[in-house]
C-alpha cells in the first residue's frame, strides 16, 4: 500500500466533504442573498482577510502571545495543582482540615472573578496570567487528590513488602497509579487556560487573539472577527491534539496499559 492511500484511509473524507459542503452552502447563500444577516461575511471574504492578517504578521504575533500566556499559565497551574493535590491527597489531616474550604472556593466560577482581577491588576498580562493560573489549577488539584486517594490499597502492601522508602513509594507507585486521573485534570486545565486567556484578552489585556477580536469588532470588520474566531478554534484543537499526542508518547512508553493491544 502506498503512503498516499494510507493517508487517504486515515482521513475522514466524508467528514471533510461535509465541512466543505457547509462552507460552500454558506458562501452560496450569501452570494445569492438568501442569508441576509447583517454583518455576516462570506467564507471567501474571511479567508481573504485571514490571508492579509497572516501576511502582515499580525495574526502570528497575536497567536503567539495567546499561546505563550496559555501555556505558561497552564504549567504554573499544573505545578500548583499537582503539588497541593499531593499534600491534600496523601496527608489526611490536611485534607480533613481544609478540603471543605477548597470545595466551597471551587464553587465560585472563576469567570466571575474576571472584572475584579481587572480592577486589582489593571489591563495587563498579569491579570491574564493570574486568571489562567487560578482557573486551571482547580481541575488539576481535584483530579490529583482524586487520583491519589483512590490508589488501590494493595499497592501500599506492595510498597511495604518491597521496603520502599516514602519517596520511592510516591515516585514509583502512587504517582504512576494516580497518573490517569491527573492527566484528565491536566487536559481540562489546558482547555480552561485557553478559555480564560481569551476572556482576559477580550475584556482587558491589550494583546493576543481575544484583544484582536475585540478590536476587529470595534472597527466593524466582521471578516477579521471571523478570521480571529476561526484561529482561536484552531488553536484550541491544536493544543488538545498536542497534549494527547504527548500523553500517548510518554505514558504508553513508560507503562503499557494492560488489556490494550494496539
Amino acid at each position, binding site marked *: 500500500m502506498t503512503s498516499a492511500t494510507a493517508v487517504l484511509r486515515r482521513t*475522514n473524507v*466524508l*467528514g*471533510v466533504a*461535509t*465541512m466543505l459542503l457547509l462552507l460552500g452552502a454558506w458562501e452560496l447563500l450569501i452570494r445569492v442573498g438568501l442569508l441576509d444577516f*447583517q*454583518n*455576516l461575511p462570506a467564507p471567501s471574504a474571511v479567508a481573504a482577510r485571514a490571508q492579509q492578517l497572516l501576511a502582515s504578521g499580525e495574526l502570528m504575533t497575536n497567536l503567539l502571545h495567546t499561546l505563550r500566556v496559555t501555556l505558561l499559565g497552564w504549567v504554573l497551574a499544573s505545578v500548583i495543582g499537582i503539588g497541593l493535590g499531593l499534600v491534600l491527597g496523601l496527608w*489526611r489531616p490536611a*485534607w*480533613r*482540615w*481544609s*478540603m*471543605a*474550604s*477548597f*470545595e*466551597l*472556593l471551587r*464553587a*465560585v*466560577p472563576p*469567570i*466571575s*472573578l474576571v*472584572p*475584579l482581577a*481587572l*480592577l*486589582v491588576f489593571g489591563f495587563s498580562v498579569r491579570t491574564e496570567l493570574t486568571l489562567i493560573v487560578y482557573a486551571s489549577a482547580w481541575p488539576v488539584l481535584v*483530579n490529583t487528590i*482524586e487520583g491519589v*486517594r*483512590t490508589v488501590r490499597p494493595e499497592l501500599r502492601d506492595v510498597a511495604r513488602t518491597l521496603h520502599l522508602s516514602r519517596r520511592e513509594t510516591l515516585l514509583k507507585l502512587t504517582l504512576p497509579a494516580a497518573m490517569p*486521573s491527573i492527566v*484528565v485534570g491536566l*487536559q*481540562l486545565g489546558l*482547555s480552561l487556560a*485557553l*478559555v480564560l486567556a*481569551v476572556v482576559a484578552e*477580550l*475584556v482587558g489585556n491589550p494583546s493576543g*487573539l*481575544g484583544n484582536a*477580536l*475585540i478590536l476587529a*469588532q470595534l472597527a466593524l470588520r466582521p471578516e477579521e*472577527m*471571523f478570521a*480571529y*474566531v476561526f484561529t*482561536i*478554534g484552531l488553536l*484550541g*484543537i491544536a493544543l*488538545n491534539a498536542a497534549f494527547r499526542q504527548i500523553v500517548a508518547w510518554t505514558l504508553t512508553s513508560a507503562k503499557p496499559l494492560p488489556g490494550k493491544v494496539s
Partner: protein
Amino acid sequence: MTTLGVGPADAASPVEPGERRRTTPARGTRTGSLPPLRGLLPLVVFLASWQLVASRLSPFFPPPSDWASALLDLSRSGVLLPAAFATVITFLLGLVAASVLGTVLGLAVGASARTDRALQPTLEYARAMPPAAVVPIATLLLGFTGTMKVVVVTSAAIWSILLNTRSGVRQLNPVMFEMARSLQLGRFERVRKVTFPALLPSIFLGVRVAAPVALVITLLVEILTQVDGVGALIAQSQRNYEFAQGYGLILVAGLFALLVNALVSMLQARVMRHRPPA
C-alpha cells in the same frame, strides 16, 4: 476515549470523576464524597482575618462586612432581584435548548455511523471553540439581546449532552428493538416507549455536566456584553470601582453554582432511582 473526544475532556468523558468516587470508595472515607465540615475552618479564619485587617490594607480588598452591606444596598434599590432572575432565565432556557438539541443531534450521530462520520470534523471543531470567542460573533449577528445570550449558552452546554446521548445510543441493547418490532410498535411509539427511556440515564449524565457549564457561560456572556443579569452587575461594579459590590456579587455567583450542583444531584437521585446499577 470516543472519536469525538478531542475537545475539552469535561464534556467528553461519559464517566465522570464523581461517578468513580461513588463506586470505588477511597480508603478511610466512610462519609462518601463530602469532606468533613471542620475543613471550613481555614476559610473562616481567612475571612475573619480579612475582616480584621482589611480597612488598613487598601481599597482593593474591602472587608467582608462591606460586601454584605453593598449587596443589601443593591437589593434595596431593586437591582439585584431582576438581575438574578435574568441570569436564572438565561441559564434555564440555554440548558433546556441544549438538552433538546443535544439529544436530537446525539440520536442522529449515534444511530448512524455514516452521519457520525460525516459530521465528526465539523462538530469537533465547533466543540473546541472557546465560548468566549463565540460571544463577539453572536453579538454581531444577533445584537445585544436575550436571544443572543441563550444561543451562546446553548452552544456551549450542548456538547456533553450530545456526546453522552451518542454513546448511549451505541450501547443500546438490540434485543429491545426486536421486542419493539415483535410488539409492532410504530416509529413514534418505539422512540417514546423504548429508545427514550433507555437513553434517559445517558442524557441525564450529559445534562449533569452541562448544567454547571451553562451557568458559567451565562455569567460569561453577561460579563462580556453587559446585557442584564448578575454577570452584567459584576462588570458594572468593575466599571464604577465598586469593590465591595463586586465581591458581594461574586458570592452570589458562587451561591448560584452551589444551588445548581445541589439541584443536579437531587434530580440525578430521582432519575437514577429506577435503574439497577449497571
